[in-house]
């Protein structure tokens, strides 16, 4: 999956989770940049990403997702791994 594809699908998920169609993501974006991004919405994000990409993050991966770029990187790793199987 290309970076662009991941970004597109992720944007879609963010828009749905935050119920805000105007969100556009950048790799540097952190929780401070979106007003409603608290621990609960973070959990919903994770749940929805796992459901949509059919992957499962480890505790460490979720803990270390400091910005959107880091999140994309983890998705990349997990989907590549899945494809390889």
């Amino acid at each position, binding site marked *: *999956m290309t970076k662009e*594809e991941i970004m*597109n699908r992720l*944007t*879609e998920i963010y*828009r*749905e*989770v935050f*119920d805000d*169609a105007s969100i556009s993501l950048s790799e540097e974006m952190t929780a401070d940049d979106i007003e409603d991004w608290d*621990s*609960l*919405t973070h*959990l*919903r994000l994770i*749940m*929805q990403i796992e*459901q*949509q*990409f059919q992957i*499962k*993050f*480890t*505790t460490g991966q*979720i*803990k270390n997702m400091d910005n959107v770029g880091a999140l994309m990187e983890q998705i990349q790793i997990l*989907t590549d791994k899945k494809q390889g199987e």
Partner: protein
Amino acid sequence: MTGNTHGNTSDRIWQMSEKIRKNLSDIPLDDYASILNIADRMVKNKKIVSDSKKIAVLGTHSIQMIVKVLDAMLMEAGLPMRFYEGEYNGLAMDILDSHSAFYSFRPDIVILLPSYTDIKEYPNMMADEERVREMARSASAFFQKLYSAIHAQLPNAHIFCSNLIEPYARPLGNLEGNVFYSQSCFVSLVNLEWIIYKPDYVTILDMRGLAERIGLDSWYDSTLWFLSKQGFSLKYIGAYCNLMKQQILALSGRIKKCLVIDLDNTIWGGAVGDTGYNGIVLEPNDPEGEAFLAFQRYICQLKERGVILAVCSKNDEQNAKEPFEKNPYMLLKSEDISCFVANWDDKVSNISRIAEELNIGTDSMVFFDDNPTERALVRRFLPEVEVVEVPEDPALYVNALDSAQAFDWIQITKEDIGRTDTYVADKKREDLKLDFSSYDEYLAQLQMCGRFCEVDAETVSRFTQLLNKTNQFNLTTNRYSEAQIQAMADSDEYGLYATALKDAFSDYGIIACVILLFDNEICRITDWCMSCRVLKKDIENFTMKKIIEICSQRGCGQIAGKYLPTKKNQMVKNLYAELGFEACGNGQFILTKEQFWEAKTKSFIKEETR
């Protein structure tokens, strides 16, 4: 990945926003991401109504997601409530402090969601039974104390308390199920104590049952636990909150009381209008027939617990009723059905008619019909009726109806189940209580009834099937086509007989076949087979008795039996010898007229004639 099936990005976003505008009830309970998103949006836009009821949720683990989804579900059900969310790990803190924010909120409903981690002391290894029981009592007493503290402050509040779900880890392995002091045993014991000492103002939420249905492997999500103290995988948030919602609705009297069932391909296979009451698929020896019978048995259980049954079928009334009166395998009887509607009108009008006749609201009805068109119509025009999604395979009907959990009542009263009915059921159960010390006594108490009949049009298929698929109890293992069987049945030379069996527990249908060839005054048993489901019940003796009767009537001088060994039929190697035949070598056995009375024909099977 499903990348290719999506359109371009803007299309996809459009689909998403469509989804988010949907109602919760349109979303399957397992689409957890959508449920969480929709609930979030609904709660954000919630308008607080000042006179709405108040509900407090106190839990040991994280409850924010639970509160949000429950809040949204109740809103959608037209019962919006105001919520109090307990402190994290605040079960005892909130309850035992009479000045807590929980009490000043003055809830009408209190939901307690404890976990096995609330039990502070588990039995030690090797703790003896009395000690374990004592500990369970005191663990339960702690909860009694919480209940009464709430009740003292809020005498009108109803309390819902989840029971305990076993921990995932089973450090004792298989021994968890062998020793009384294991953690899992202890959790079960505490759950039982809770049931026994439950005050009237408390209802237990059977989350243990839910977790069991799902399986502990997926129920718990350790990652979510360590990250945010979710007590279970949020994948099941839909089912979890739905259970609570149903109970809250039941508390306010909103329950389903009546099951409306279709007939053809719903409680039996095939169309009775085409095949007649005996042609429907309901034979206990046919796997599909057995599936329909299992579904009928489940419906009978619903009836026993007080659910009203109604039939709504597109059929001529007389055709539709005939199986109930005449098909011997029907478990549902006419008297079980409180309202029977079979005609060619549309089902929407018929369901309204049934509601009127039974004097209940259409909103208390559940509809089960194999036909997707009928389901869609009822959903469209009577949205208040709960329409169960019916799978294609009748084997899964029980699962479908059961997992819909439509009849989630808060209590069952004597009035519900009806006094006379209970009386009949109790008496029957008493009659069925088996108490025996020998195998003969056991057989005697089974109250077996046998029927030995010549093969006819109704039984020829089953007869052929049994002969062709039986390998073990089969003396000669000949295989025949149905046409061959029919030809033999039509000829005077042959006698084709089937034994059917019933006992106090079930009707087995046809379970043994015999083909007799009358060769002058010799009666040759060319074929004899029996289903392995009914071994060791003396059916061979009963069948032998009937063969001898027939031979005596026809004036036969002797009966000749034959055993052709195969890899699989060793069990009947000595059958003829044991029955009293004389071996003549080469697998041939003879019983002469003079020996008829010596043959082993005693059995506990009472003869039933049609």
